[in-house]
């Protein structure tokens, strides 16, 4: 017992040094060589950081493409999904309200066209992406509230659709909106 304890204590110290000190420092050193220097890549407009590339943000104004509902209101100090079950009546009412509010802000859109990712909360609450359909369906609203041509916005959306080899296609909401702001100038 005593021998076991003494070995345990010493082996624990050795392993702490190896696994909790050396290993993370090594990875941090490698991280310094990556584009975001291990701190997370950012997106800047005119030299000012407006967001993190991986982290989604909230857009409420009609002039911007909007992302998905978020359980943490896109504040990345935390992260969470809604954890609502598929049969929860309160949750289903919430989805219905989101559909109604979307239809009110987007005249001319029928509800069959609304893709489900626009009215359901993401797992992290920080999803930076929407599906291509979710972007296309907002083109008309964004174009008319900005007073620019539908064609221009459509081209922009088309240019922002990413189709990976295996995964689903997506549009990065922040990048699209940054590009949208640049049209004006």
């Amino acid at each position, binding site marked *: 017992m005593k021998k076991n304890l003494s070995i345990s204590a010493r082996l624990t110290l050795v392993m702490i040094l190896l696994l909790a000190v050396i290993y993370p420092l090594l990875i941090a050193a490698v991280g310094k060589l990556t584009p975001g220097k291990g701190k997370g890549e950012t997106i800047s407009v005119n030299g000012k950081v407006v967001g993190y590339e991986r982290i989604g943000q909230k857009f409420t104004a009609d002039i911007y493409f909007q992302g998905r509902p978020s359980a943490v209101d896109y504040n990345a100090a935390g992260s969470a999904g809604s954890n609502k079950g598929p049969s929860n009546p309160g949750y289903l009412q919430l989805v219905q309200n989101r559909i109604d509010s979307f239809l009110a802000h987007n005249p001319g859109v029928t509800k069959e066209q609304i893709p489900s990712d626009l009215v359901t909360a993401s797992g992290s609450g920080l999803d930076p992406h929407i599906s291509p359909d979710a972007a296309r369906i907002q083109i008309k609203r964004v174009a008319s509230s900005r007073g620019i041509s539908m064609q221009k916005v459509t081209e922009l959306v088309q240019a922002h659709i990413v189709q990976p080899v295996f*995964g689903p296609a997506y549009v990065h909401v922040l990048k699209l909106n940054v590009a949208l702001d640049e049209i004006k100038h």
Partner: protein
Amino acid sequence: MTGEITGVILMFLIAVVLAYPLGKYIAKVFKGERTFTDLMNPVERFFYRICGINPGEGMNWKQFLKAMLTINMLWLVYAFVLLVFQDKLPLNPDGNPAQTPDLAFNTAISFLVNCDLQHYSGESGVTYLTQLFVMNFLMFVSAATGIAALIGVLNGLREKTTQNLGNFWVIFTKAITRVLLPLCIIGAVLLAINGTPASYDGKDSITTLQGDSVQVSRGPAAGMIAIKHIGTNGGGWFGANSAHPLENPNYFTNALEMIMQMIIPIAMIFALGFFLNKRKWSVVIFGVMTIGMLCLLIPTMVTEVNGNPAIAKMGISQATGAMEGKEVRFGPAASAYWSIMTTIISTGSVNSMHDSSMPVSGLMQMLGMMINAFYGGCGVGILNYLIYIIIAVFISGLMVGRTPEFMGHKVEAREVKIAALVTLLSAFLVKAFTALAAYMVARHPETGWAVQPGNWLNNPSYHGFSEMLYENTSANANNGSGFEGLGDNNIFWNVTTGFVLVLARFIPIIGPVAIIGLLAAKKFVPESPGTLKTDSWTFGMMTFAVIIVINALSFFPALALGPIAEYFSLR
């Protein structure tokens, strides 16, 4: 969608293709044969010298277990103290508070036992110091403990008659220096390249394009996320685990993390074949486990891709499946695949919120954890499967009227009793504690705990019951995923799941080690025409049947009250 299905199939195939040579390598390492990692020899010898370990010294099964349990006990105390005093210790750039004693008790146990049930959120409940010195540290050593227990068992099976299961300290050290750490370094570097943070900088504050002020949590996460998967631990750096875009930035990292969590459990099956020179046996075990996995996976993928019927009734388009709790960059197919792999393998990391999964998926996730032996956790998956094998051997013996034998040793009353106890224990723990919780919700909803029982459940009705059942199932399987809507950071859940965790970790390790220790010490019985061939497909199917029967008898009534009832209410 075809691309997404292809992606899932590829993720599985790549993991198996990589696991095969890894299994061969692991067998070589623990047989003491020459490998290219022998360059670690001087380092290990240095470790043994300063720790007072005599690497040549063998251990019988009791000495082996004593060594294992002593060091585990020490880690528990160490982790508890650090968590309770984390606010006063350095490396806390975000100024996070200390954990309450009941939460620290739960957290320390949970990471010690390779479960990682997290009743806190990574962004606010721990500091960089505890993330690295408690979480990240325990993830390595608990995985190495599981691997060491399995290697001890294999050592017992390898010799005709032996008392010696090998030296626990040596096996444990090599599991880290030769297997876990090298794999983690590769994984962590790939994650860092893809944008997972690795620096020690604290939270950042920014103003968004629209003008909101938000903060962004960061930290040296990449290393921990690697061992979280390689060691089948599953505890996330961030609250949302691998759904978080910094913890799992893109489809490539999603595939990488998935392959990382599958690779050791599957490699261990092949290692068993190489180690014991019974390749056919390992192929049969792999086959049975894969059939079991497919039985759980296919229904889950189908329902997630088809979407939520209640939302379909509202008349919107669900071309991308059921999206509540899922991320656009992964989609429903890869999320469904992950949810099954993480529950059968006992990782418990998530890339979508299981609480929002369809009822059929929730059912399959829980079944995966109840069985807990389709691949299973680092080392312990095969130990769980071994228990099923012992029971199958016993039942087959009864059917043909012979004293059952396993690997050339007679299986007698004592061994079968241990196996039966281990199986019954999990059914007891899951159901008893779920019943207790349900009782508190129904009868004492206003008990003055940090979260009152009346507020525990995030969803009403059957789904609410599923939240409690899932939590206990996950604790019992040492899985760590959750129906996270459950308000579990209070003394009731922290303490009850704490006990479930300890019992459900160590008894299923002690049981098989003791069984094999007892068997290996017996006289060797040479194979005869009447011997039951445990490496045949017939016996494999027998084991599969035993798994189905035991788990159906144990858990069907509880599942009927939760996900099955919800399924019928939603159609």
